[in-house]
């Protein structure tokens, strides 16, 4: 249990990725731990904030879902701007959503440099028979962009908790990392220019 005398640390997570890759499902699965809310009477605006109890501390995660707003392409950088974690999601049964991940990761790097945790998530493993992107390819890309990687199924509840647990565990380091990175911010921003960045705009 966390140390109650210290204020709880809060971290913002932003969920990125193409439409319909399951960003929202991952969030609701994590927040409410059930995929079928058939008998839930009250549904509605939720502030999407959840406290996680780790072995040595307690932190609060604030999730931010860009789902539904993908078309407001130019607004998304502002959401990335103040997040500590970017969860870039693709659908393993949709190659296009995988290809577009590079663009999302670029965007995050452009906004945040190295001062951010990026997790590449291959969602919908329950659609195994329609898989278009292999686990190896996912791992490969994660390595290439120096991000974390995990495959999940929000629908089946597979690997959802581990995803958030791993994020939470990676978070404490960010404090010291932050200080270091702040000294060389421009260097990291350059990544954007170096990459042959895909044209912006709506790929959806």
């Amino acid at each position, binding site marked *: 249990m966390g140390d109650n005398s210290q204020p709880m640390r809060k971290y913002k997570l932003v969920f990125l990725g193409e439409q319909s890759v399951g960003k929202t499902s991952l969030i*609701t699965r994590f927040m409410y731990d059930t995929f079928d809310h*058939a008998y839930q009477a009250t549904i509605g605006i939720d502030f999407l904030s959840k406290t996680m109890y780790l072995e040595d501390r307690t932190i609060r995660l604030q999730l931010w879902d860009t789902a539904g707003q*993908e*078309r407001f392409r130019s607004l998304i950088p502002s959401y990335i701007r103040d997040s500590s974690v970017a969860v870039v999601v693709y659908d393993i049964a949709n190659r296009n959503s995988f290809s577009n991940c590079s663009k999302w990761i670029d965007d995050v790097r452009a906004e945040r440099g190295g001062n951010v945790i990026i997790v590449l998530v291959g969602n919908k493993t329950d659609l195994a028979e329609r898989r278009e992107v292999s686990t190896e390819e996912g791992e490969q890309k994660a390595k290439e962009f120096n991000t974390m990687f995990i495959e999940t199924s929000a629908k089946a509840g597979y690997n959802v908790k581990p995803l958030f647990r791993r994020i939470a565990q990676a978070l404490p380091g960010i404090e010291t990392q932050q200080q270091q990175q702040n000294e060389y911010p421009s260097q990291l921003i350059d990544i954007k220019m170096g990459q042959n960045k895909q044209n912006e705009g709506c790929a959806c």
Partner: protein
Amino acid sequence: MDLILMNETFQERCKESLYQLIEEKQIALHKNNLLESAAGINDKEGGENFLDQIQYLQDENEQAAATISYLKAYQKSHSDELAELNRLRSEVITLKSKNKFANESSEEEQLQNTIEDLQKRLTEISAEKLALEERVKLAEKLKSMVEEENEQLREDIQKIQSSMKTEMINKISSERAAKDEQDEDSGAVIFVQDESGNKQIKAATPKKLVERLTDYSSYDNQFLQAFMLTFRCFMTTGELLELIMNQYTKKVKEGTNNNQSPLYFRIVNTLKFWIDNYWDDFESDKELYEKLVNFIENFDDVSKHINEKVMPPEGLNINTKIKQICKANPPKIILPKDIPLKRSGGNTTGNELKTSTTSASSATNTGKTDLNDGKMNTGSSSGKETNTTFYNYTDEELSNEPNTSSTNASQNTGTTPSSGNILKTGDATAGSNVDPTPWKDTGPEDDTEPSVGISQPVARRLTFLDFDPVEIANQLTYIEFDLFKVIKKEEFLDLAWMKDNKEELAPNLCKIAQWSNHVVHWLVSEIVLQENFKLRVTVFERMLLFTQSLLKLNNFNGVKEVSAALQSSSIYRLKKTKKAMASKFLKLYDSILKLVSNELNFKTLRTKIHTADPPLIPFPGIYQGDLVFLDSWGKNILEGGLINFIKYQKMASYILEFNTYQRKGYNIKPLPEIQNYIKRYEPLSDDEAYKYSQKCEPKKI
């Protein structure tokens, strides 16, 4: 003289009390009507009793009025007489003095007598006047008594009305409860309790949903609104009409007890709501339309046939009204709202002609829709070539802007651009035909375009500094409200804007998103293209003033756009520029970012929107996000084919909230030159902007 004056005031008073009496009579009459309608259906007898009472009071009132008018006439004759007397008296006095010496004493005596007579008469008249006053007082007393009685009567009526209401409600709810129990047992409906403990439908079969829709014992306006918006997600329009018709046939078969009339009333009401709010359903589906007309005609006949008496007058009226609407306006014409939404073919040109039903936002719209149509028709192609004519506009055309609506601009008296740099619109049509760029999707394929279309024909590019920031805010708001108000409720259903054929299903949602991207790119370009440091600081400051004006206009969509521009990678890094601003601007900057922050799912912005008074433009993204989130909650259809209606109810509540803001428009005078500047601006791409940004403030090495 005093007497005459007194008479006048007296007459005034008489008149006044007369008017009061007349008023009183009218109230009584009105009450009469009220009573009739209140007691009409169930308590005819009681109503007649009241009617008699009121009649009696009315008679009394009339009597009092007659008395007073008689008195008034009497009074008048007296005053005439008095005047005559006075005249005579003064004549006598003059005569007296004239003939003082010449006249014989007898004559004088005679005169003296006459005077005495006259004085006597005067006293008599005065006494009579006093008596008259007494009578008037009496009449007034009578009047107040009548008033008292009226008051009493009014209270009684209220009591009766409320007791009747409670009785009805009790009866209805007990019937309802019995039906609910039956439904729940059969598994066709599932109920839940809402926050305040009221029973609410959680899920039900389509048939049961329609049954509730048309059943008098389950009247619920929210349910009606939600259902009529969302039913398209789980049944076709044809199926719905079929189910409603079945409801009707069922009621007919059930026979004729005393409560029949409200049953029909609910069916009629449902149809009326459908027609009023979603006329497009019928307009786009001839078969459905014909079915409806057929049904309505049939409805009339059959219901009359069954039992003419039990049809309530209101029911009949509405019924005929539907008929009138349908008959008077063959399929194409009625549009429930004054939104002449052109479909891609532009085949419904007749639409603007009739806006028969709702007209909530009509006042401000006529002019704007013109513009809008132009946009939609010219679409993406015409943008480039019109650009060359941009600078050829003549001065006097400014007043001919295509605005037929209210010209009295409200907030913007300072309408002229701050600098002397003026572009004028061409003719009125040019003003509406040219507005290109915003409509292009800033998607990948567009990225190469800017360099191709225009060979930078401009000696000097118009910039943000050429106009008053307050006026830019006005004009942006004008443009954005036009885009915002045409978004249809149906575009939000089923996440239509995220589907492959979104341009077809949700054209206006797509457009406003594209527009927002354009605005963000425009603002970013304006800052990074300003190479001069001081001027760049000024642009930054002006942009914050501009945002402040947007806030005053409640254009939250616009505020969101500016904040996105300020937080883009090209602008965010311009720390020197930012720091050089006056401190009040820095404060403003922080407060704006705070307002639109996504912190706690836009908590601050949501609160602000909810507390603002329309007109306002919300940020549609919030609603879209909520709907996506909602979509992930549970199934749409539960076991046994039950529609998860509580989910649809929630969906409708989001969409209807958005819809309420669409109804009240702004009163802004359009200034084409500023609007064109915004619309035609050729913004830099993200990468270009970033390069310029690095030029502005080179990175440290």
